[in-house]
């Protein structure tokens, strides 16, 4: 097993240090903490400059009026306008649906590829493909689905010609909530696969064998060992998928051109579009997005603590 190397070295070192006084070269016993702080300063500086400050600027802008004074008018306009409320509702719904469905299918596919009996090439193929597919979005993805499930798409035509079922006559449309969700799964499922595969690796085969030896069925293994161990990772991944879907912009626009009401689309329209409006309004919308995702992150943190508690 891979971790034996350092462990053997560790035994050697422990034996050595038991006999020899631990040296303190350069009095580093005292200087080491300060050296360590220096090591993380670059990161904090960078994060402050390129993440914290720009985000703060947007958040502050949400509460400014045209002259720069403080106001809650923008935020209240977002809350009280039906169009914006509806956009938040739709965005949250799509994100929940694609997080749950994407999470489920991603988990099943990742497990299928990662588990013991599957040839390694499937795992490598799936991981590399997922890496690309998780970032395949916007117009190319939208058109790929129009060519597949659009009114003249190959799957649409196949179902019509070979089974006599015209999905569009039965009320399906690619350009609705359902259609957009189906398209979103194309990058949600791969993201789930990428995130959950390492966690699945952590499920030792010995546990499975031990459970079988004790007479447990597959279902019992999953219920009492597998799922509880995986739960923190699954929850974390689901939140990630939620945020990813909530923030998605290019694909929704490319597919519907704005017909399905989503928050990033409205922000995009306000930033670079023909709508001459109050820029602080887009910042208020952005603030709303941050609140929604922030809340989901907090929920995740709470759930994560509960779920991992038994492991301590």
């Amino acid at each position, binding site marked *: 097993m891979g971790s034996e190397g350092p462990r053997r070295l560790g035994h050697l070192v422990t034996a050595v240090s038991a006999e020899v006084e631990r040296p303190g070269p350069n009095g580093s016993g005292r200087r080491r903490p300060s050296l360590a702080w220096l090591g993380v300063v670059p990161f904090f500086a960078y994060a402050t400059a390129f993440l914290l400050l720009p985000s703060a600027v947007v958040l502050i802008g949400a509460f400014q009026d045209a002259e720069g004074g403080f106001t809650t008018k923008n935020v209240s306009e977002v809350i009280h306008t039906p169009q914006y409320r509806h956009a938040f509702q739709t965005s949250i719904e799509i994100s929940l649906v694609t997080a749950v469905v994407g999470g489920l299918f991603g988990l099943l*596919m990742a497990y299928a590829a990662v588990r013991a009996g599957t040839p390694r090439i499937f795992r490598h193929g799936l991981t590399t493909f997922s890496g690309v597919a998780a970032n395949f979005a*916007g117009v190319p993805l939208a058109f790929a689905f129009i060519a*597949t499930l659009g009114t003249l798409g190959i799957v649409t035509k196949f179902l019509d010609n070979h089974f006599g079922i015209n999905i569009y006559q039965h009320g399906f449309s690619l350009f609705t909530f359902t259609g957009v969700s189906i398209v979103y799964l*194309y990058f949600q499922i791969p993201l789930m696969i990428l995130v959950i595969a390492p966690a699945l690796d952590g499920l030792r085969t010995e546990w499975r064998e031990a459970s079988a030896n004790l007479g447990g069925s597959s279902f019992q293994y999953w219920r009492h060992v597998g799922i509880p161990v995986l739960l923190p990772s699954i929850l974390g991944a689901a939140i990630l998928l939620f945020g990813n879907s909530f923030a998605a912009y290019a694909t929704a626009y490319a597919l519907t051109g704005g017909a399905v009401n989503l928050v990033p689309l409205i922000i995009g329209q306000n930033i670079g579009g023909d709508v001459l409006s109050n820029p602080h309004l887009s910042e208020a919308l952005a603030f709303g*997005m941050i609140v929604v995702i922030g809340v989901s992150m907090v929920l995740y943190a709470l759930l994560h603590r509960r779920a991992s508690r038994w492991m301590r």
Partner: protein
Amino acid sequence: MRRPRFAISSVVWLTLGAAYFVIPLAATLLFSLQSGKNYSYNLSAYGQVIHDEEFWKTLRLSVVLSLETILISLVLLVPTAYWVHLKLPRVRPYIEFLTILPFVVPPIILVVGLLKFYNGTVHAPLWFLESPYAFLGSAYVVLAFPYVYRSLDAGFRAIDIHTLTEASQSLGAPWRTTLARVIIPNIRAAALAGAFLTLAIVMGEFTIASLALFTTFPTYINLVNSQQVYEAAALSLISFGITWAAMIGLLAFGGGPGRRRAAAGAAD
């Protein structure tokens, strides 16, 4: 112990998955070949794309941008993750918060903030604002934080860092040597996993590049999609293929036992 078999359920799920992912690509492929009269088949769309010099120009830009982003993220995050594991466990929550933040602040908001801050609030030097390698690169490093840090974190957890460091030090090595000769080789696989994800992110990132008015490979793809018919479909597939090939390349370069070791310890 009997060697585990390729389970039926695995085959089912992998096949269903393959169908969902491959069919749209196949539909695009079929479409890209139909540029002949009355939708007859030929490869002219692909020829057009390969001969377009904008294709090569933007591809080169995005690839270099990816490599730059990978380099900067690793330089920032490897020491950070190392110190967090070794000496500063109390800083960990702050670092984790900062590396999760790019998910909470979506790209569309990040770009608005960056533009407002560096254009307006702070009058950043022109060379910074104008260069994709400067302005855009800085934004991309932020986008890569969560993925690179997570991989490195898992990698560091999989090795016994205290023992390695002490062993190295008791053998007389200074910090720099410890870092370079002992630590880095052991987390190589984790770093490569992070690099791999960063490459895919930068090669596919559209929102920030387009709103900040830079011309990268993804914005070029978007442009072709609005102006040409079959070349656009050919281009989507070519870009998918190029990115996939690059990932496989990275995997081959870094793969092997190292990967399994890091992955085995990477329970979340």
